[in-house]
């Protein structure tokens, strides 16, 4: 119905709409701050935000907070990755264990675990340990559930035929179970990473001593709006970068 040229034109048109949307948003923002009666305390000038962002990047002021946040994220994800895959694998070894544990974990996954943040702060203090613990708890469930789904529901015919061809335990795991389960586990790891990042930024926002979330709150409380917007932009960019990197790794691992 539509030729390649037609489709090409359509693609350019939608790119143009996206660009226009962005331009409209920024110009609306800029009009509101320069001619409208919006107080700069509520909405700073976009140019001022850009200057602040450049200043933040140039001065390297962000490095300390970024390091804290990324360390928390890395430790939390390492913990949940190892415990999640190991627990998931052990549960997936028996259909009975799946029947017993999977609904329990799915139920726990549906509770907003952020509720336990006050408890974690009580146990682990305001520093990084409470954030690591919360991030690890939240990301444990998607990883474990996906590992169970990956290893637990492999077509029986595959394992039986591998066994009948004389595969050893290791060979069965390496050449049948792992390749079958790997894509599902990768999806779980990606989901876990995303929620861990969210949990760590969230808990830093709520109660912390350092980190990017803490910095944003600190700037909000001192009413330094332009710099706060600059930090928000920075964090959103970092998060987008991390998430897209993880998605790309996932896509590559699935090939």
């Amino acid at each position: 119905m539509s030729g390649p040229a037609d489709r090409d034109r359509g693609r350019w048109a939608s790119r143009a709409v996206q660009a226009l949307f962005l331009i409209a948003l920024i110009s609306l923002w800029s009009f509101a701050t320069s001619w409208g009666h919006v107080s700069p305390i509520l909405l700073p000038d976009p140019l001022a935000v850009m200057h602040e962002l450049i200043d933040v990047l140039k001065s390297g002021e962000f490095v300390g907070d970024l390091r804290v946040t990324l360390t928390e994220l890395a430790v939390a994800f390492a913990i949940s990755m190892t415990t999640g895959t190991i627990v998931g694998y052990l549960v997936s070894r028996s259909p009975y264990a799946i029947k017993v544990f999977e609904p329990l974990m799915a139920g726990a996954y549906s509770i907003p675990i952020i509720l336990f943040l006050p408890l974690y702060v009580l146990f682990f203090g305001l520093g990084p340990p409470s954030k690591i613990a919360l991030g690890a708890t939240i990301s444990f469930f998607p990883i474990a559930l996906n590992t169970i789904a990956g290893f637990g529901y492999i077509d029986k015919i595959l394992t039986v035929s591998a066994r009948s061809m004389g595969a050893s335990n290791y060979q069965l795991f390496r050449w049948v179970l792992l390749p079958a389960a790997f894509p599902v586990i990768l999806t779980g790891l990606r989901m876990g990473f995303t929620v861990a990042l969210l949990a760590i930024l969230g808990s830093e926002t709520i109660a912390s001593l350092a980190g990017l979330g803490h910095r944003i709150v600190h700037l909000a409380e001192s009413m330094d709006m332009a710099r706060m917007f600059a930090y928000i932009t920075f964090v959103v960019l970092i998060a987008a970068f991390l998430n897209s990197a993880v998605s790309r790794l996932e896509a590559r691992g699935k090939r």
Partner: protein
Amino acid sequence: MAHVPAIEEAAAPRALAGRSPWRRVQRFLVAWPGLARLGVIALLFGVWEIAARFYVDKMFLSPPSSVFTSLHTVFMTPGVPAALRITFFELSVAFVLSIAIGLSVGLTVGLNRFAHRSFMPIILLLYGTPQVTILPLFILYFGIGPASKIAFGVTHGMFPIMVTVIAGVQNIKPILLTSAKSMGASRWHIFRWVIFPHMIPSFFSGMRLAMTGVLLGVLLAELYVSTAGIGYFTTLFTQNFDPTKLLGLISMLAAMAIALNELVRRAEVRFSRWRSA
């Protein structure tokens, strides 16, 4: 060779039935995985009870028995019932608003191919950003009352609905639309009898995701700053080192979250039944 012992094992319980009580228990549990699940929960509570009674400082953890026997003291704390009511109110308003916004945007974007191509990347981009970074802004714009919690909950709840509604509308086979059109269906008829039923299952899974999102958003905002909601009381109990009340409040909220999730899940199962039938 590996499966020979398995056959023996399978035959053994029948031979031993009635003789060894442990075997009986085992068989009973195999027949009823639900009971084993309850057993696991009981075991976890047991570990918690023992840990709290004998190993952990009373200032940080209290045993589940005293948490549940003193649930009424949480309710008697002035302001707590009102706080739970406020949180419930915020959750429901945010959920309804996310459905309204998500559905209208999702249908507009999903039913128009050009709009889909233009705005879907923007929606996915916004869905992927951690909104918690702009939480302080919501407090600034909407104040520290319920309005900011509702607004923040809506930002978490509306995107899943948009994305699933768009996916549901897009997945309709073109042949269905073409045949409906060729049989002379009006736009409304097509919407009511072709698009709408196809949208329902994905819409409900979107609602489930939105419920999770709204819970997360509202609770995050509550914990961040709150003058009368549950966030105020969790902070109060934490600062007073009163883990009994804190755990009581948290378990009530967790029960509320589980109930709400279960409600939406039931609705999802019920309304997507037509497809499998």
